[in-house]
């Protein structure tokens, strides 16, 4: 184990991989800081680029972006009261109040150092827990794997969605899309209409880029849904705040624990973790200091930011150990690994332990880069907030077209991107979430092969999913996730009458 870890460390510390990590950090700060641009968008834009990279360079780039994007979202949250990412929503509450009192530098420094703490904490949990989960998952057969993917899909489709029916419809449509192409068991074509381009199915990368990027471009250029105010103040030296990494330790530990735990649950989402952490920190604050907390103080920034980056490591646990992405970002990471021919899951820990350790080291390197780079270059990111949408969005558009073309040197993929872009725009407009569709497209092929192989071995008996204990547990949890919103709303109606 130690030799794999050492080999991985030497691999991550090469100049090329350090540069990739730094590039990911800078790009992540950029997309995280600017409201309207998301971490998912940044990752899908970089995905085609990772085709030409080796796996460690690719993961260094994307993890750098993942960690820094979460941190970058706090910059506009604190300065403009507009979160750059949904997970920075709670930071805006205390952070912007500090800015109004002239304490912007302190708030920003607290946010960055707390994010670093959260990332480190979640990395420690990831390193400790992931091998244990992977070892347990090695005992899974086809039946357990089918039930696990079913659980992942139902959690994403039903948990945390405003309308469960719409979430499920989005997921089912995604699953239907995965049936286009060659059947995974008997390799006969389905729904290809004789077209060569459809033989290999719909590539998930143009779908991802279309679903995430095009609606944002449309909203920014055509709908112009929001105007971003300018920040006119000055920022004093933020770097001195680095000594505050371990300040307010008990609040940060609890918050990071919340972030890591929530991040590990598929479908739970960043905003849940950060608001839970904000609320928990308030409860932990002595009564005499509550007023200061409510008026915006360091703890009100530190807690949600520690939770925010605690999500990073937590979300990687189910993705790396089980191959189940819990959110769009880890779904994109999963896609990036599949591009490299790596299949996340328990077998990855056995067949490629050096790569697994590389992920851990790349995470640590990314977190360290984020801390120092953000604190040293804070004034740059404040200036970046002023870049107008009409400059950024056309550039993103060109990236999308060239990026999707570069996947297979084919404009067919660019056409697919545009189709799903329009579909994504319509879905968002009418209240259908796009994340379930995306995750269904990523997990659908595995779901079909595991399910059909399970039924083949049981000679078509569906009760096989209930006879295996682990599978039964997964199915029960999935049913509970379906029924609990219905039961909750029935109870609410009863209380109201």
């Amino acid at each position, binding site marked *: 184990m130690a030799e794999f870890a050492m080999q991985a460390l030497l691999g991550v510390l090469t100049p090329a991989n350090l540069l990739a990590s730094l590039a990911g950090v800078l790009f992540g700060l950029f997309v995280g800081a600017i409201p309207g641009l998301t971490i998912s968008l940044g990752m899908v834009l970089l995905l*085609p*680029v990772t085709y*030409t990279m080796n796996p460690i360079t690719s993961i260094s780039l994307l993890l750098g972006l993942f960690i820094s994007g979460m941190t970058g979202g706090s910059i506009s949250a604190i300065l403009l009261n507009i979160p750059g990412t949904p997970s920075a929503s709670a930071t805006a509450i205390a952070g912007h109040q500090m800015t109004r009192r002239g304490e912007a530098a302190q708030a920003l420094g607290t946010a960055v150092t707390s994010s670093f703490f959260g990332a480190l904490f979640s990395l420690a949990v990831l390193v400790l827990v992931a091998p244990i989960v992977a070892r347990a998952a090695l005992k899974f057969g086809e039946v357990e794997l089918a039930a696990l993917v079913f659980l992942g899909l139902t959690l994403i489709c039903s948990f945390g969605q405003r309308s469960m*029916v*719409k979430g*499920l*419809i989005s997921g*089912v*449509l995604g*699953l*239907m899309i995965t*049936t286009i192409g060659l*059947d995974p*068991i*008997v390799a*006969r074509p*389905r*729904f290809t209409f004789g077209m060569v381009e459809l033989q290999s199915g719909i590539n998930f990368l143009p779908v991802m880029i279309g679903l995430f990027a095009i609606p944002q*471009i*449309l909203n*920014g*250029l*055509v*709908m*112009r849904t929001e105007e971003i105010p300018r920040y006119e103040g000055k920022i004093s030296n933020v770097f001195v705040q680095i000594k505050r990494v371990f300040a307010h330790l008990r609040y940060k530990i609890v918050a990071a624990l919340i972030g890591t735990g929530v991040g590990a649950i598929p479908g739970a989402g960043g905003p849940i973790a950060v608001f839970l952490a904000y609320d928990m920190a308030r409860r932990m604050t002595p009564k005499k200091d509550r007023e200061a907390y409510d008026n915006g103080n360091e703890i009100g920034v530190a807690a949600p930011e520690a939770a925010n980056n605690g999500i990073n490591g937590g979300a990687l646990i189910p993705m790396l150990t089980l191959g189940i992405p819990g959110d769009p970002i880890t779904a994109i990471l999963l896609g990036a690994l599949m591009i490299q021919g790596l299949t996340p899951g328990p077998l990855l820990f056995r067949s490629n332990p050096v790569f697994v350790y590389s992920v851990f080291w790349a995470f640590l390197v990314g977190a360290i880069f984020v801390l120092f780079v953000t604190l040293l270059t804070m004034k740059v990111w404040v200036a970046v907030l002023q870049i*107008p*949408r*009409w*400059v950024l*969005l*056309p*550039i993103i*558009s*060109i*990236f999308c*077209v*060239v990026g999707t*073309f*570069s996947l297979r*040197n084919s*404009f067919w993929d*660019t*056409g697919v991107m*545009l189709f799903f872009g*329009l579909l994504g*725009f319509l879905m968002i*407009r*009418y*209240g259908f979430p796009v994340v379930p569709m995306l995750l269904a497209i990523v997990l659908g092929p595995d779901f*079909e092969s595991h*399910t*059909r192989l399970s*039924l*083949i071995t049981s*000679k*078509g008996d569906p009760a096989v999913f209930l006879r295996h204990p682990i599978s039964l547990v997964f199915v029960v949890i999935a049913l509970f996730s379906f029924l609990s919103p219905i039961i909750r709303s029935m109870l609410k109606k009863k209380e109201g009458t």
Partner: protein
Amino acid sequence: MKANREKIVIGAVLLAISIGYGYMTAHLPTRNLPNTLGLDFMPWVYDILLAILSLLLIGSGIWGSTGGAGAKQLGGREIGGTFILFAIFVAYIYLIDAVGFLIVTPFVVFAMMLLGGARQYVKMGVISVVVTVTIYVLFRYVFVVSITGIAFT
């Protein structure tokens, strides 16, 4: 009221998709290996699920609570802008191969900036050219993607 009407219409469209998908599934080749589920098994599962969910959506539109503003009405500018943006994308995809990335991209970037409400034409021109060259160099020489710089050279 409007939200309920939307649910009924969208539910009907999804039901139609489910019927079409079911028709295509029914015409898939039947299984030819013993003791295996055919390649139509999962498509049927998804089709039935979609049909049920569509009916649920239609039902919630008919019998659900009234109220809800539904999706915001799009004005003429927004609908026109959407068409123009997609037309720009389609034309761009066609013209990159026919004319070359370096020639067509500055015009596309300029057009999108115009669509986004920018009116500082000199600044827009300079940005368009700089962005084009930067992206070309990045993809062509750093990421080694073979895009045609200038066609017919």
